[in-house]
């Protein structure tokens, strides 16, 4: 599987945009201006990026409550996302969805989802649509280690296999379902092992390693497009922030996150290896960093200045017609 310079730069831009976006939301949340429940994706960027780089707007993904990264990787407008998180009218969902429900169907992003295990049945549907319409599209469902224990996930793995749907199920195993360790909550050895019970390949990848995610996801997606059926990919990863913003994370070892940040950070690792391999130059990355810094600054300023929805917006968009 090849990765040209443009792809490598896109990968870097996507991962870095997610990181800077999430780091900024983390900071802004502490000011009290960001309302509601916010779950940050920082640390897991290689997964959304490595998977979505293989997709275009006609391919679908469905996401989790920790969905900002998937949205950005699938091409959702970053300013629109930030405005949405602030609950503003120009937000991607007109301020009616918020952090947990960002979606843009025109980009093939079927929504972050407030229900743990929400994505898998929906991507079975997107896969069924692709198969019925014969358009060669694929659908990727993201779930966490928590979501992997939901019946919806198990049912969907079975259905996708029975119907040989062009679906990829990506389990982002960040070690914790809220505050409960996967070691406690899960009876199998690796979450990928569950795939064999549904007669599909199950692969474990290092979710900090963009290259590994990219390669494995690429094979699974190619296979699905060619009619080879579904795949389960478990990405073992760490989240840098808490379950939600405001989580004191006392359930984690004191140096746990710091160790990963220092030694296994997906963006640092990608940048070092891509530069060393001559795929990209330091200057390219520095220039992208400046773009992103400006973009996020702009997004936050626009969001803060944007109007909130008005009373007449309360009852619109419940139905197409009623």
């Amino acid at each position, binding site marked *: *599987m090849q*990765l040209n310079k443009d792809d490598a730069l896109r990968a870097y831009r996507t991962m870095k945009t997610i990181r800077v976006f999430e780091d900024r939301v983390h900071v802004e949340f502490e000011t009290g201006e960001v309302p509601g429940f916010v779950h940050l994706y920082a640390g897991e960027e290689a997964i959304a990026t490595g998977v979505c780089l293989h997709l275009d707007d006609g391919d679908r993904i469905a996401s989790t409550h920790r969905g900002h990264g998937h949205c950005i990787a699938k091409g959702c407008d970053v300013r629109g996302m930030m405005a949405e998180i602030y609950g503003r009218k120009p937000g991607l969902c007109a301020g009616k969805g918020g952090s947990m429900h960002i979606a843009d169907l025109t980009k093939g992003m079927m929504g972050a989802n407030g229900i743990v295990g929400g994505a898998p049945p929906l991507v079975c549907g997107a896969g069924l649509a692709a198969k019925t319409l014969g358009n060669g599209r694929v659908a990727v469902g993201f779930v966490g280690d928590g979501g992997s224990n939901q019946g919806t996930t198990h049912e969907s793995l079975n259905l996708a296999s029975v119907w040989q749907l062009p679906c990829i199920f990506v389990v982002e195993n960040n070690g914790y379902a809220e505050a409960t360790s996967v*070691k406690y909550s899960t009876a199998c*050895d*690796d979450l*990928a*092992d569950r795939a*064999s019970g549904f007669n599909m*390949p*199950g*692969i*474990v*990848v290092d979710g900090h*390693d963009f*290259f*590994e995610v*990219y*390669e*494995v996801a690429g*094979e*699974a997606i190619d*296979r699905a497009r060619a009619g080879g059926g579904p*795949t389960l990919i*478990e990405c073992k990863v760490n989240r840098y922030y808490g379950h939600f913003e405001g989580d004191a994370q006392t359930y984690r070892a004191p140096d746990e996150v710091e160790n990963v940040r220092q030694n296994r950070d997906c963006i640092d690792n990608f940048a070092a*290896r*891509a530069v*060393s*391999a*001559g*795929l990209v130059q330091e200057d390219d990355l520095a220039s992208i960093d400046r773009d992103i810094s400006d973009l996020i600054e702009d997004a936050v300023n626009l969001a803060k200045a944007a109007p909130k929805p008005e009373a007449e917006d309360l009852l619109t968009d419940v139905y197409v017609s009623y």
Partner: protein
Amino acid sequence: MHKTSAVGILANPAAGRDIRRLVAQASVFPLAEKCNMISRLLSALGAGGVDEVYMMPDAGGISRRLLRMLQTPSLQPRPPVTFFDMPVVDGAADTLLAVERMVEAGVGAIVVLGGDGTHRLVAQVCGDTPLTALSTGTNNVFPALREATIAGLATALVATGQVTDDGATCSNKALRVSVNGTRDLALVDICVSTALWTGSKAVWRVDSLSQLFVAFAEADAVGLSSVAGLIRPVSRRDHAGVRLDLAPPGEAAMSVTAPIAPGLVVPVGVAAVHDLLPGERQTVCAPQGVIALDGEREIEFTDGDRVAVWLDDDGPRTIDVERVMARAAHSGLLTSTDQTLSNPLQKGDSTDAAEQG
């Protein structure tokens, strides 16, 4: 009263869930089955006279499952199992530390359950302690797929000193690689590719492969070494190895249809074949690329890096299960006789074994 004999069991909880499951229908080897293997091993070790077993604690669930399993009664007596009191980081460091502890504890042998990667790690630190190499899965060349009970019996016979002659164990070659002075090793093959990055570890595409170094190559092997095995087989006991210069099939003088991974039989172009003698430093031709150790891409290097590969004859010693069991039969090691009853081997036609014993 014989002296206490101990055996180490090193089981890697993380083996074998890589891209080969997706691209090559590789086998799935669950922890539960590893634990069943260990349980069968323990029974055989007990039957063979081993008094003590040392194991590595792990975060993957093997030690947890085994402790539960050991609490339940067994038809077959099992030697006591001690899990080392050591930090667990859930990575290669655990294996290295546990094997060092086993060597310190003076075990007579170490049974390794894992793939080529696990065996590579063990080989770095096991010294002269003989290994029983057991494969957990279909992806491996160095360890054998073999019933754990028999491997356990053979291991016990060696570890307890009941079988001592040199034929019971054999020495292995090892391939060493050094990148800017940092060393690693492979037990079967080292492959250099011109790809710029490693993704999933397994090598399963051949288009960018440029050089293949093999310590041994068997015609019936699966994996990259099969390319050499099908044109210039060398046994584990041969003095030398082989080096192949590879090229895309259309551009090379020879094309070998080789099973480079389970379920993956593809043409590989071979431009040249060379002997690989122990100690001879080999130059890596590609200016930059990726180095795979025993079929797993591990090292990325670029044109500034100093890369060298060579063959050594100081690899780990392994227990030859077939020979040990043949010796056990020959010497009646697992046989006892009751003088008050007539010896069945001295009746009728079946006299050979007894006479030879």
